[in-house]
């Protein structure tokens, strides 16, 4: 788990340096939206050929499950729809980075220099994504991010060629969760998040949302990566006695492990709880289904949403994977593929900055996430769902019960102000 952490001072220094670089890059290119006078393809005449994609994901090591899901989502789209769109053939080379930033960088260089790819997609973890995005932008290759949630990827370290395509930033998704909790009449909250960047950002989002609506966060607890026995933290949540508890995990076992302790200590019926995307993901529902009926969470992905896009995706995934329902990681890969297909369909073969501007100027009306567009820092602006665990056709599903449309990454601030803040940490929560 060590590879996911970056010590705060290093992060800050790096963020500052890259922030300056990003500002210079932005200044040099004028507003990124306007930068690209993409040649409007004339009627009936679009460029054809091959879009070569390098896809980096941790398919071995500690993050193998999440990494494999991210690849599965991407592949599934092309298997179902064919890998030819509007005369353009999409060719994918998958590389494994095992969650290690140095390996990610080596693989990215290999993909660009010897395979000659047009675009690099992935990797999964924040630090690997930041490393790859910095490299690809320096050589003029677009980088698409299907899952990575690091705020800085589209803030302090944003660049013209990096787009978050299949997720939202860590604080962005959880901000509406806080607003919702306060709107439900809860006055006090306690939070529990993992003790590294993703957790700090998730909790900061919730806290700011909750406090913007007049609530008060009375205690914040942090669990180290690798925690399996959560009973201590559950006792602390119980002792805090807040109206609602917000709990975030980065997916995998912590979700079920936390809930096992939460239910075991008898808080299931007495403590209001809101979880994040990944703590209440399909893996958790498959493990605990009936025990967590009615439990609520906040996410940009809701597999139980009533929409044709989601239905089509879920059915295809279920057919390929033993009737399972897709998790947020699968959805991120699939969303990225359907987005690439949509812009190729509209523009024919586009590469480099043209590909990026085709994406960021596009509004994806009926994506699996709902209506999604992109801000000037290339981050998604889209819906956030409050979801409830319900049984649908014998399976446990996160069904949206409330929707916040057009959520952006600025948490109600203006971009300048938001980026002048320190990066989120235990001690700075916005």
């Amino acid at each position: 788990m060590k590879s996911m952490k970056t010590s705060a001072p290093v992060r800050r220094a790096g963020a500052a340096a890259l922030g300056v670089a990003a500002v210079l890059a932005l200044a040099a290119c004028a507003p990124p939206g306007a930068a690209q006078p993409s040649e409007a393809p004339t009627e009936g005449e679009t460029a054809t050929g091959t879009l070569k994609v390098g896809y980096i994901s941790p398919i071995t090591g500690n993050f193998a499950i999440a990494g494999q899901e991210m690849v599965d989502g991407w592949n599934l789209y092309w298997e179902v729809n064919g890998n030819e769109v509007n005369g353009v053939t999409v060719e994918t080379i998958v590389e494994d980075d095992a969650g290690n930033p140095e390996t990610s960088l080596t693989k990215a260089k290999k993909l660009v220099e010897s395979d000659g790819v047009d675009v690099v997609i992935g990797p999964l973890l924040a630090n690997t994504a930041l490393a790859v995005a910095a490299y690809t932008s320096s050589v003029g290759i677009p980088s698409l991010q299907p899952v990575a949630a690091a705020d800085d990827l589209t803030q302090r370290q944003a660049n013209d060629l990096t787009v978050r395509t299949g997720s939202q930033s860590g604080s962005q998704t959880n901000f509406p969760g806080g607003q919702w909790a306060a709107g439900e009449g809860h006055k006090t909250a306690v939070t529990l998040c993992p003790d590294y960047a993703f957790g700090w950002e998730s909790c900061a989002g919730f806290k700011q949302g909750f406090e913007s609506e007049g609530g008060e966060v009375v205690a914040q607890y942090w669990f180290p990566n690798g925690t399996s026995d959560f009973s201590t933290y559950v006792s602390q949540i119980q002792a805090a006695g807040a109206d609602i508890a917000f709990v975030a995990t980065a997916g995998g076992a912590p979700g079920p492990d936390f809930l096992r302790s939460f239910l075991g200590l008898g808080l299931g019926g007495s403590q209001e709880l809101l979880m994040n995307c990944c703590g209440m993901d399909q893996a958790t529902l498959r493990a605990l289904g009936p025990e967590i009926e009615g439990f609520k969470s906040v996410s940009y992905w809701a597999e139980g949403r009533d929409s044709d896009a989601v239905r089509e995706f879920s059915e295809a995934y279920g057919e390929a994977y033993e009737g399972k329902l897709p998790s947020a990681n699968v959805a991120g890969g699939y969303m990225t593929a359907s987005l690439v297909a949509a812009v190729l369909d509209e523009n024919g073969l586009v590469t480099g900055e043209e590909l990026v501007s085709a994406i960021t100027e596009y509004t994806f009306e009926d994506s699996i996430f709902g209506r999604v567009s992109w801000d000037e820092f290339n981050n998604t602006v889209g819906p956030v769902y409050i979801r409830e665990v319900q049984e649908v056709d014998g399976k446990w599903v996160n069904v949206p019960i409330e929707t916040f449309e057009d959520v952006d990454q600025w948490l109600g601030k203006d971009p300048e102000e938001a980026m002048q803040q320190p990066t989120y940490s235990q001690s700075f929560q916005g």
Partner: protein
Amino acid sequence: MFEPVFLAQQALNGLSFGALLFLLASGLTLVFGLMRIVNLAHGAFYMLGGYIGVVIATLTGNLLVAVIAAVVAVGITALVVEVGLLRFVRGQELPEVLLTVGVSFVIADLCLAIFGGDPRTLPVSATITGSLTIGPLTYPWYRIFVMAVAIVIGIALALVQSRTRVGAIVRAGVDDREIIAAMGVNIRWVFTGMFVVGAALAAIGGTIGAGMISVRPGIQDEVLLYALVVVIIGGLGSVPGAAVGSVLIGLIDAFAKAWIPDLAYFTIFAPMALVLVLRPTGLFGKAA
């Protein structure tokens, strides 16, 4: 943070986690003490036992059947590993240890291929639901049950070790395996038997533990690390040492997470370092 109910609950959290650690560490310490093998496949045996236990518990809804199935399956696996592999490198320390690492990798990969990557926990039907309530204190019956199992197994192991002939042979083997072999005991089969018993204890821990922490890829290394810490603190080959080490680490872990969360890992390894410096054989270990 210092209210009596909170303290009592944290103490129980620590004790129940310690109970799970004991199920894990007792097998490791026996194998370690008798065979002088750092069995790095012990975590994988826990994992395999956990998966099999969860699957059988889901099918039958009966925890006892699940535990028996896990013990049998893991016991057979351990027998094959000992007779089929370990015997060929007996007495060569490095190959022995590396072999157990290899076995761990193979078991973990097979588990991933067979059981998939989802975290698995015991189904409700096979656990004990509900909580004990004493005034303002509530505590889940299941975790109390885990403590009870650990106590029963601990007493049984201690009795076997101190009161039976098998126990005497094992104790003698821990102290001096050459002499015990010279006295006509077939030490080879004692080793095999102990290796299987150690693995069976891991399997019990894996199945029962799956009601507290989920079984998933990577769990084998996590639990192995905890078990090694407990065994080093308690002393090689000592069941009472494993018991004391488990309770100590469980309690330290629970209270450190509550009071000094930033040092939660340090507080587990610091006692180990301290014991190694002040008493290198562990609290209950005998000088080699």
